[in-house]
């Protein structure tokens, strides 16, 4: 413990994280003193120096993590006894290479790799044991999330996650489905999933990442808990292509803080679609750094903050090289007392001439108690660039509602049609037809619920004239 220990650093909570970390260190058979052990220690120290963010941090202003971080969260354990997820629900319709993680630990019995070829898809922990030096060349190599205590804590405490590696020029026939579920998790526990994805030169990967407890959708709400401080690192090497689609949805106490760090080499391509449909608190930090010229990224998302949910998407696109293209399109809905946050930074460095960077964030408020905070942020230090951004927050157009009603379509159905249309641009761009159907049906279910709740609220709040 060096450096100005703050009052927070001495707090019982942080001491307890240190004790948990020391317990974890004792279990690191054979890795003691290795790169990975050193790395964990350094991350733990960094975390202790920083402490958890609070709302005085500009970056966390709208996202109250206080309730979550005041208490000590113990690392979630691999559940005892029957540890197969209670069915995969609609996910079983996806033909994919499947990796299942429970509470951040790998579950081989529920996982299945159906393709063969020049790639590796499996457990990161096993990959580290098999060839630590090789993994060390990639692991935590981006450090984009250096600013977040949650990511540092993950680097100190992670158990396992996906290791996905495609050899130069390789293609994987079917998508790779990563399922992160939590099971028998207790109220003071948190999982630390840690995924590492490397697409070598000219290779191509398509990944679907589901972070949900919806595989347990039949369990009573109070027994379903999901809490994760997750990190995924994605290396897209020269001429490689990676597509990463994420579905985040959970009941009641679902809390997810998720860092996705991407590096794009020359001529590479990255696209992501993020669907955050329900959760008490979801925070996505998606950081894309260009590491070479003529690379492209296209990141899009749909979020729905209903009831008292808070959904926060922070994007950081770092144009560190010339001639790259980035596009952001996020569409959000807030209903009930929900809060949605969007913060998109486009950072164009002085040498990054001929940058094309676009950002669009469109929001709809479905109730007068819902909140949208949107902040586009362009920091441009090159002069020969094309950048644009636009953010809107509004309500459904009453003229459109009337037009649909005038054809016999009831208010709720009209609203659903318009919201489906609002999100269609993003959802319809999903490549996998079966995943698109899943996202659409989950979105429709959540929207129907939000409409039902909102109209109930309207009835209650209408003046008794």
């Amino acid at each position, binding site marked *: 413990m060096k450096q100005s220990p703050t009052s927070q650093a001495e707090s019982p909570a942080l001491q307890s994280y240190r004790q948990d970390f020391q317990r974890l260190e004792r279990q690191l058979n054979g890795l003691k003193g290795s790169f990975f052990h050193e790395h964990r220690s350094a991350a733990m120290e960094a975390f202790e120096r920083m402490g958890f963010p609070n709302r005085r941090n500009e970056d966390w202003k709208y996202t109250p993590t206080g309730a979550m971080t005041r208490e000590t969260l113990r690392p979630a354990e691999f559940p005892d006894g029957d540890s197969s997820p209670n069915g995969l629900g609609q996910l079983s319709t996806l033909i994919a290479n499947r990796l299942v993680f429970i509470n951040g630990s790998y579950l081989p019995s529920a996982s299945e790799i159906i393709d063969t070829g020049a790639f590796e898809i499996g457990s990161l922990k096993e990959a580290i044991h098999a060839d630590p030096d090789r993994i060390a060349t990639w692991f935590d190599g981006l450090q984009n999330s250096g600013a977040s205590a949650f990511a540092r804590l993950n680097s100190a405490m992670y158990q396992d996650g996906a290791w996905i590696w495609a050899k130069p020029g390789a293609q994987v026939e079917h998508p790779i489905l990563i399922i992160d579920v939590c099971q028998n998790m207790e109220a003071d526990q948190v999982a630390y999933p840690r995924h590492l994805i490397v697409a070598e030169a000219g290779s191509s990967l398509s990944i679907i990442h589901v972070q949900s407890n919806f595989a347990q959708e039949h369990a009573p709400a109070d027994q379903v808990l999901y809490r994760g401080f997750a990190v995924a690192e994605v290396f897209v090497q020269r001429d490689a292509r990676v597509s990463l689609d994420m579905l985040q949805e959970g009941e009641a106490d679902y809390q997810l803080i998720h860092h996705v760090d991407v590096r794009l080499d020359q001529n590479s391509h990255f696209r992501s679609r993020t669907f955050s449909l329900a959760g008490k608190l979801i925070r996505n930090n998606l950081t894309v750094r260009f590491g070479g010229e003529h690379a492209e990224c296209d990141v899009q998302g749909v979020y729905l903050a209903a009831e008292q949910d808070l959904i926060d998407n922070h994007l950081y696109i770092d144009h560190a090289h010339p001639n790259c293209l980035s596009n952001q399109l996020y569409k959000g809905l807030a209903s009930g007392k929900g809060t949605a946050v969007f913060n998109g930074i486009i950072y164009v460095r002085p040498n990054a001439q001929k940058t094309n960077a676009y950002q669009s964030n469109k929001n709809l408020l479905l109730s007068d108690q819902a909140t949208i905070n949107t902040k586009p942020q362009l920091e441009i230090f090159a002069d020969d660039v094309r950048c644009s951004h636009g953010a809107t927050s509004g309500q459904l157009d009453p*003229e459109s509602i009337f*037009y*649909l*009603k*005038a*054809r016999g*379509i009831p*208010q709720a159905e009209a609203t659903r*049609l318009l919201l489906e*249309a609002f999100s269609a641009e993003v959802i319809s761009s999903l490549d996998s037809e079966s995943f698109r159907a899943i996202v659409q049906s989950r979105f429709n279910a959540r929207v129907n619920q939000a409409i039902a709740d909102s109209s109930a609220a309207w009835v209650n709040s209408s003046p008794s004239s």
Partner: protein
Amino acid sequence: MLSIKNLAVSIEDKSILKDFNLDIKPGEVHAIMGPNGSGKSTLASTLAGRETFTVDGGSVQFLGQDLLDMEADERARAGLFLAFQYPVEIPGVSVANFMKAAVNQRRKHLGQGELDAREFLLKMKEKMAMLEMDPQFMSRSLNEGFSGGEKKRNEIFQMAMLEPKLAVMDETDSGLDIDALRIVAKGVNTLRNEERSFLVITHYQRLLDYIVPDYVHVLFDGRIVKTGNRELALELEARGYDWIREEYAALT
């Protein structure tokens, strides 16, 4: 079919319709003509249930029901159709999806089962052909990027799909060239029968050359001041509205 008695309507405290009376029987085609600002579109919007208008008095019976007590969507399901003067563009909602939702609501109301996909497609194709619309319109976003004429044809297409009891056409002829006008009129005339009634609201007589009305009413200052047959429309075309204004001024 429709019985409007002493209807008074205002918008933002401005009185627009005053003591408006009209009776329409099954199978009849009524035309309402009048200068700008006489209350024509207010009448159409009030009948369809647009909430920006306030009904200050009077009653409207539609097929024995109190129309003013019904929501816009209930009115449509009961068989009232408004062809909009300015159809709304709705990006992301395809004509086919929209029509399917609307047709099924109407069928449900009539106690009929939903059309299966094939029947629905055939019906759409048939009605589009009648209105000389490209079948590709089905998959396009509702009214988005449609020309003025395409929007109006799309309104009549929807009317044909929904088979209403009473169709209110709010200046459907505005912005139409002569060919589009002829196509729209053909569509309407095909739908004419002994049970279905039409209320054709128009500024010009031209449309009435193609859709021949049983009655022509002149709307002025929020009331019907003159009623006749199609000869009245021709007279208005020839003489304009000034003589109506003078007659009305002499009366009041």
